C-alpha cells in the first residue's frame, strides 16, 4: 500500500530546508535549487501515487504513533489519507513542483538562492504536513509553520522596506486568526480530551449547543485569518511584494488554501450547526463580492490577482457555508490551477518588462503565443466561461446554494461571478491586447518558466472533464442538475460580463474615461481602488486610536486645556475687578498647587533611579512591610 | 575492641572510611608518584638514547628520594608582594581535591575507598576544582608569567572538561551506572576500548590535556613562561604542585584503565590489585611517551582541538552510543 508511506511526503522537503539553511553560503546556488526541486518532485510523485490509489480504491488510511503523554491524555501524532487530503496533497505538491521549476529560472540571478529554496521547501513541506495531519494539534503546528514561511518568503527581499513591513503585516494579521483557532482547539481539547479528528468528530455532538457554536466560530476565525477573508484580508495585497513564485505558491497551493482545507476537514462538525454555516456563507460571499469589486480598478499586476484570490477563496468558503463541500474543493482545485498559472504568467510579464503597473503595459501578445494563449485559458477558467473547469465548479456551488434555498445568497453569488470576468479580462487586455501600442521589454524568458505555465494551462483546460467523477469520489455527494434554468441564466450573466470587458478594454468600443466622469461611478471607482478603505481605516483606527498617548493628548488638548482656559478666563474677569486679590489669591493658589506637585514629584522621582539595585531595596522594604502587616493582623 | 571490630566500625562510618581511603590513596600516590618520576626520567632517557638518573641507588631508583630531601630542605619562599594566603593555600587545595577524587577509585572489587552512587561524576567535579587552585597559585604569585600560565591552564581545562565528560558519559550510558565499580564489572566480556574506539581516543586526548602534559602543556611551557603557574613556588610547596600534577596524571591513567581497559579484570595468575596497578603503570608510561615524542602545540591550536574537534566528536560519539543503546545493542552488558 502506497498510502502507508504518505508520511514521507514532507520529509525530503524538510531535509532540503535543513541542508539549504545550514549550508547556506557553502552550497552552490544552482545546487540548492536542484535539490529542492528534486525533493518536491519526489513528493509530487508520491502524492500522485497516493491520489491514484485513493481514486481507484476509495479507501482511507490512518496511521499514528503515540507522540507524548500529558497527564492522562495520550496525544497521538499521525497522518490521515482520505479523498480530501489526497486531493489536497496532489494540488499542493503539483503546484509546488511547477513553481519550483519556475523559480529555478525566475530566481536565477538572486544571491541568496539557497535561503529562497530552503524556505520554499519548508513552505511546501509544512503545507503537505498540514494536509496529512490527523489531529488538530499537529495541524496547528504545521499551520504556524506555514505562517512562518509566508512571513519569511514575503519578506524575502528584506532590504526593501515594503517587503519587511508587508511580511510583518501578513504575519501579525494571520496571527489574529491563529489565536482564535488555537483557542478553539484548546476549548475542544478541554471538553473532549483529544486532538484527533476522528475522536473529535465522534464526541463533538455531546457538547452543548452554545459551546459547539463558539468552538466552530473560533475555528472559522482561524480560517478567516489564514484564507484572508473579510475582515482580515488586508495582508494579501501587501504580501505581493514577495517574489512572484512565492505569491503563486501562497495563492494557489499553500497559505490561503489552508483555511478552506480546515473548513473542509471539520465539515462533519459544520453540518450540525446551521447558524455557523450561514455565518460562514455570508462571510464568504461578502468576501467574494469585496474581492471582485476591489480587483476591478487596481493597477498593480499582482494586486489584481491578489484581490481575485480573495474573491475566489470567498467563493470556496461560501460553498462550504452552503454545504457544497465537494463544490468548494473542486473550485479549490480549479483555482489552484488557474491562479498559479496567472501568477506565473504575471511573473513572466514582470521579468520581461520590469514593470508592475498594468496601465503602462500592453501589446504582450506579440511576444510569442504560448504564454498569452495559456494565460487566456487561465482567465477563461477564472471567469467561469464554459466549458472550462471554473464554470463547472461555479455551477456546482450554485447548485449547492440552490439546495439551501436562500435567494439572497444566490443573487449575491451571481453578482460576484458577474464581476470576475470583468476584472480578469481588464487585466488580460491591458497586458496582452495588441490594441495598446506599448513598448515591450527585450528580455525573454526561457523554457523553465514557460513549461510550468503550459502544464498548468493544460490542467486548467481539462479540469472540467472530471467534474462528475470528482463529485462521486468525494465523501459528500451533491445532487445535480435540478436548476437548469438558473445555470443557464448565470452562465449568461457571466458571458455578459465577459462581453462587457472585451468591449471596454480590448475593442475599446466603450470609453472607460467617459464612464468615470459620472460622479456615482467615480465614487465607486474610488472605493474599489482603495479596497473600501478597510486597510486605511485599520491603520487609522488600529494604530492611532488605541495609542493611549495620542488619546491622552487629545483629551488634554480638548478637555484639560479647555478647563484650564475657562479658569483663565474666569481669572481674567476677576482680576479685572480686583488685581490685588488676583495676585495674592489665585496666583498664590495656582503656584502653590504647582509647587506642591513639583515638590512631591521630586520626592517620588528619587525612587526611580533606574538601578536594579535600588529596586531590589524597595522590594525588600515592601516585603518587610507586608510581613509586618501580616504579623500585626495575626496571619 | 579487637581489630576486626575496629575495621568494621570504621567501615560502617562513611566519613572515617573515606578519610582512611584518601590517606591510603595519598600514600600510594606518593610512592607511585615518586616512582613515576623515576620511570619518566628513565623512559625519557631510553627514548633519547641516554641513561637518565644513575647515581642514587640501583639504576638511580632512589633519585626521587634525593629530590625529596632537596625539596624539603629548601627555603619556603613566599613572594612578598603576592597574595600570601592565597599563594600558600593553592597547592593544598590542588592536592587535597585530587586526593579526594582518588578516594573513589576501586583498586579491586573489594578495595574501594567509597563506592558512592555518583561515582565518576564526583571525580569530574573534583577535577573541575583544580583550575581554581591553579588560578590561586598564579594570582597569589604576583608574577605575570604565573598568571598567564594559570589563565592558559584554566582555558585549557574548561575546553577539555566538556569532551572529557561527554566521552565518559558515553560509557555511562552504555553501562547505566555512574559507579566506577559497576563500569568495571560491565567489562567482563569485552573491554570498552573496543566498543568505544572514538570515545576512547577523545578521552585519551582530553585527559592528556587535562593533566597538562606535553604536547598540551602550554601552561608551563618553559621557553616562554619559564615554567608556568608554579614558577614562584619552591621547596615543599613546589613539591606539592608537582605531586598534584602527577596525581592528575595517575588519576588520568587510572581512569583510562577503569573505563576502557577493564580495571582490575585479570588474566588469572595475579591478584586483581596487582593487575590494576600494572595496567595503570602501562597507561602511565604511554601517557608519558607523548611528552618526548610529540612537539608542543600553540595555545590557540590546543583550544581549537578542544572546541572544534574533540567536542563535536564526543557529541557524535555520545549520539551514536545513545542510539545503539536505545536499539538494545548493549543489553548484554
Amino acid at each position, binding site marked *: 500500500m502506497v498510502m502507508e508511506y504518505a508520511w514521507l511526503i514532507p520529509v525530503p522537503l524538510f531535509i532540503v530546508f535543513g541542508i539549504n539553511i545550514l549550508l547556506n553560503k557553502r552550497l552552490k546556488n544552482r545546487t540548492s535549487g536542484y535539490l529542492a526541486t528534486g525533493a518536491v518532485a519526489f513528493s509530487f510523485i508520491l502524492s500522485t501515487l497516493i491520489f491514484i490509489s485513493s481514486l481507484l480504491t476509495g479507501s482511507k488510511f490512518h496511521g499514528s504513533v503515540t507522540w507524548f503523554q500529558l497527564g492522562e491524555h495520550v496525544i497521538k501524532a499521525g497522518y490521515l489519507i482520505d479523498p480530501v487530503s489526497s486531493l489536497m496533497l496532489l494540488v499542493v505538491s503539483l503546484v509546488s513542483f511547477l513553481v519550483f521549476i519556475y523559480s529555478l529560472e525566475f530566481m536565477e540571478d538572486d544571491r541568496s538562492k539557497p535561503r529562497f529554496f530552503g524556505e520554499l521547501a519548508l513552505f511546501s513541506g509544512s503545507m503537505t504536513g498540514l494536509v496529512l495531519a490527523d489531529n488538530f494539534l499537529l495541524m496547528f503546528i504545521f499551520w504556524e509553520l506555514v505562517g512562518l514561511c509566508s512571513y519569511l518568503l514575503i519578506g524575502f527581499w528584506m532590504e526593501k522596506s515594503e517587503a519587511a513591513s508587508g511580511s510583518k503585516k501578513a504575519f501579525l494579521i494571520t496571527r489574529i486568526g491563529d489565536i482564535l483557532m488555537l483557542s478553539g482547539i484548546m476549548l475542544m481539547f478541554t471538553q473532549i480530551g483529544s486532538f484527533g479528528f476522528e475522536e473529535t468528530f465522534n464526541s463533538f455532538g455531546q457538547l452543548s449547543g452554545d459551546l459547539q457554536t463558539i468552538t466552530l466560530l473560533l475555528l472559522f476565525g482561524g480560517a478567516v485569518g489564514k484564507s484572508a477573508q473579510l475582515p482580515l484580508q488586508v495582508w494579501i495585497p501587501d504580501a505581493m511584494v514577495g517574489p512572484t513564485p512565492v505569491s503563486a505558491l501562497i495563492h494557489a497551493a499553500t497559505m490561503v488554501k489552508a483555511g478552506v482545507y480546515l473548513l473542509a476537514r471539520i465539515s462533519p462538525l459544520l453540518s450540525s450547526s446551521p447558524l455557523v454555516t450561514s455565518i460562514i456563507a455570508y462571510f464568504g460571499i461578502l468576501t467574494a463580492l469585496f474581492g471582485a469589486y476591489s480587483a476591478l480598478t487596481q493597477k498593480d499586476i499582482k494586486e489584481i490577482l491578489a484581490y481575485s484570490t480573495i474573491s475566489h477563496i470567498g467563493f470556496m468558503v461560501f460553498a462550504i457555508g452552503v454545504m457544497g463541500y465537494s463544490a468548494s474543493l473542486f473550485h479549490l482545485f480549479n483555482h489552484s490551477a488557474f491562479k498559479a498559472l496567472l501568477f506565473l504568467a504575471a511573473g513572466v510579464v514582470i521579468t520581461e518588462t520590469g514593470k508592475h503597473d498594468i496601465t503602462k503595459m500592453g501589446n504582450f501578445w506579440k511576444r510569442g503565443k504560448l504564454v498569452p494563449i495559456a494565460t487566456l485559458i487561465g482567465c477563461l477558467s477564472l471567469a467561469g466561461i464554459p466549458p472550462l473547469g471554473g464554470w463547472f465548479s461555479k455551477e456546482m456551488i450554485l447548485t449547492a446554494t440552490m439546495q439551501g434555498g436562500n435567494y439572497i445568497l444566490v443573487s449575491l453569488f451571481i453578482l460576484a461571478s458577474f464581476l470576475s470576468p470583468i476584472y480578469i479580462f481588464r487585466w488580460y487586455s491591458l497586458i496582452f491586447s495588441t490594441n495598446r501600442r506599448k513598448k515591450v521589454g527585450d528580455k525573454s524568458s526561457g523554457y523553465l518558466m514557460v513549461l510550468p505555465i503550459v502544464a498548468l494551462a493544460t490542467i486548467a483546460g481539462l479540469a472540467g472533464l472530471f467534474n462528475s467523477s470528482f463529485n462521486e469520489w468525494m465523501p459528500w455527494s451533491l445532487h445535480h442538475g435540478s436548476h437548469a434554468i438558473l445555470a443557464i441564466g448565470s452562465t449568461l450573466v457571466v458571458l455578459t460580463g465577459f462581453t462587457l470587458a472585451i468591449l471596454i478594454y480590448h475593442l475599446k468600443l466603450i470609453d472607460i474615461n467617459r464612464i468615470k466622469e459620472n460622479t456615482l461611478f467615480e465614487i465607486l471607482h474610488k472605493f474599489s481602488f482603495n479596497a473600501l478603505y478597510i486597510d486605511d481605516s485599520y491603520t487609522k483606527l488600529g494604530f492611532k486610536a488605541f495609542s493611549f498617548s495620542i488619546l491622552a493628548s487629545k483629551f488634554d488638548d480638548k478637555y484639560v486645556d479647555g478647563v484650564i482656559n475657562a479658569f483663565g478666563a474666569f481669572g481674567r474677569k476677576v482680576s479685572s475687578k480686583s488685581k490685588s486679590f488676583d495676585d495674592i489669591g489665585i496666583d498664590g493658589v495656582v503656584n502653590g498647587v504647582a509647587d506642591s506637585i513639583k515638590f512631591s514629584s521630586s520626592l517620588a522621582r528619587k525612587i526611580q*533611579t*533606574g*538601578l*536594579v*539595585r535600588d529596586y*531590589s*531595596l524597595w522590594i*525588600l522594604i515592601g516585603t518587610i512591610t507586608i510581613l509586618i502587616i501580616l504579623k500585626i493582623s495575626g496571619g | 575492641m579487637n581489630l576486626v571490630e575496629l575495621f568494621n566500625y570504621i567501615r560502617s562510618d562513611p566519613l572515617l572510611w573515606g578519610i582512611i581511603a584518601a590517606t591510603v590513596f595519598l600514600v600510594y600516590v606518593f610512592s607511585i608518584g615518586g616512582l613515576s618520576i623515576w620511570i619518566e626520567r628513565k623512559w625519557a632517557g631510553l627514548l633519547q638514547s641516554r641513561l637518565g638518573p644513575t647515581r642514587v641507588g640501583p639504576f638511580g631508583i632512589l633519585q626521587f628520594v634525593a629530590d625529596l630531601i632537596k625539596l624539603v630542605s629548601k627555603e619556603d619562599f613566599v613572594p612578598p608582594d603576592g597574595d600570601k594566603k592565597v599563594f600558600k593555600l593553592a597547592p593544598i587545595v590542588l592536592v587535597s581535591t585530587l586526593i579526594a577524587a582518588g578516594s573513589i577509585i576501586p583498586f579491586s572489587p573489594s578495595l574501594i575507598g567509597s563506592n558512592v552512587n555518583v561515582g565518576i561524576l564526583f571525580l569530574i567535579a573534583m577535577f573541575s576544582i583544580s583550575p581554581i587552585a591553579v588560578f590561586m597559585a598564579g594570582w597569589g604569585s604576583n608574577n605575570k608569567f604565573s598568571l598567564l600560565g594559570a589563565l592558559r591552564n584554566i582555558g585549557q581545562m574548561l575546553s577539555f572538561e566538556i569532551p572529557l565528560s561527554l566521552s565518559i558519559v558515553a560509557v555511562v550510558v552504555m553501562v547505566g551506572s555512574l559507579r566506577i565499580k559497576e563500569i568495571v564489572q560491565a567489562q567482563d566480556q569485552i573491554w570498552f576500548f573496543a566498543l568505544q574506539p572514538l570515545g576512547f581516543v577523545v578521552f585519551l586526548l582530553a585527559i592528556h590535556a587535562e593533566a597538562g602534559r606535553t604536547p598540551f602543556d602550554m601552561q608551563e611551557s618553559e621557553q616562554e613562561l619559564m615554567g608556568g603557574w608554579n614558577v614562584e613556588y619552591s621547596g615543599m610547596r613546589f613539591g606539592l604542585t608537582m605531586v598534584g600534577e602527577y596525581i592528575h596524571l595517575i588519576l588520568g591513567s587510572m581512569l583510562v584503565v577503569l573505563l576502557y581497559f577493564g580495571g582490575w579484570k585479570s588474566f588469572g595468575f595475579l591478584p586483581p590489585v596487582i593487575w590494576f596497578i600494572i595496567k595503570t603503570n602501562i597507561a602511565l608510561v604511554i601517557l608519558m611517551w607523548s611528552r618526548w615524542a610529540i612537539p608542543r602545540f600553540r595555545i590557540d591550536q590546543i583550544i581549537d582541538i578542544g572546541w572544534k574537534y574533540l567536542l563535536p566528536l564526543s557529541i557524535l560519539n555520545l549520539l551514536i552510543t545513545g542510539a545503539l543503546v536505545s536499539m538494545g545493542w548493549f543489553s548484554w552488558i
Partner: protein
Amino acid sequence: MIAFHFLITSIGLVLIGLYGVITLRHPIKILMSIELILNAANINLVAFSTENLIGQGFASLVIAISAAEVCVGLAIVYNLYRLKKDIDVMEVNALKW
C-alpha cells in the same frame, strides 16, 4: 536530621545575599550575592524534598538557570568594563548607551 539548621543556613545566606545586593556597588559582587540567594533557595528545595524528589529536580533546574544567568551577567559586566573602564553600578543607570 532536623530542618532547623538548614533553615538557619538558608535564611542566613538570603540575608547576606540581600545585604550584598543592596549595599555593594561592584557588579560582579552583586552577581555573587545573587548566587548566594539562589543557593539559599536551593538548600531549602533540597532539604525539604522529603516525600518526593521534585524539590531536588527543581534545585537542579535552578543550578542550570543560575549558570546561564552568571554567563550572561559576566558578559554584560565585561562589556561594561570595555566601555566604561570604571565599573560601578551607580553609573550604569541608562538603559542604553
